[in-house]
């Protein structure tokens, strides 16, 4: 049986990259990053499924999930902070380093 899973991983990674690049909302950028991390996880678990009794791929996937949680928490905190300061969640409109007065 040929594996569709590496292709699914590649597809999800490309979709995530397209979401990050083309969407104008910072929350959508976070969604795209989550998709890309999921694509790597699919590849890790699929490549680790060799039947050899080793589960290193799954452990790597576990650590990727942990890092994804940290990234989501920090990213949303940054989004909230930027929204408090600039009243927008569109990254292109956040172009001032100094407060306007």
């Amino acid at each position: 049986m040929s594996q569709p899973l590496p292709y699914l991983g590649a597809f999800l990674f490309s979709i995530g990259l397209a979401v990050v690049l083309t969407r104008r909302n910072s929350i959508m950028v976070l969604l795209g990053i989550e998709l890309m991390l999921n694509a790597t996880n699919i590849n890790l678990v699929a490549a680790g499924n060799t039947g050899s009794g080793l589960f290193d791929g799954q452990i790597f996937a576990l650590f990727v999930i942990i890092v994804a949680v940290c990234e989501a928490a920090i990213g949303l905190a940054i989004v909230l902070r930027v929204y408090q300061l600039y009243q927008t969640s569109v990254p292109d409109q956040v172009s001032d380093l100094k407060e306007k007065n």
Partner: protein
Amino acid sequence: MMFAILLYLFTLIAAVAAFGILIARHVFHAVLLLIVCLTSVAGLYLLLSAEFIAATQLLVYAGGIVVLIIFGIMLTQKLSGKGNQLRHDNLLPGLVVSTVLLVLLGYGIKSTPSGSIRMSFSGDSMIQIGNSLFSSYSAPFEAAGLLLLVSLVAATVMARHNKEEGS
């Protein structure tokens, strides 16, 4: 046979939901499609006999990260307002870059030999993962705990609403 049908079904659902995220007109619809995508990926993990990863995926992603993102949406914009109508920007360069990446990755995967999937619902993987997390992977495990603590504190400090500070 059943296995192959489920495998391709979950793959198809995940791919279609991911594409829906790309073309969704509303942030909230995109998040709901993300739940569909992540849940079908958890089903794929079950088929790959990675039960622990499947459970973690459901708990952490569908239960944690998606709820966090929905909170982020509700705190940063009005749910029914115009602010959620998404526009695409840099449409041509973004699509060109991602399509080129997809073609290159597909070419690389095609020219790599891949083994077939072995499935065994023995429950062995959970025991093995638990053993290795506390023996050979204990240092990364502790580092991950530290990382979680640091990110929790940092997120709390950054998202704190402080009017007196002024900046």
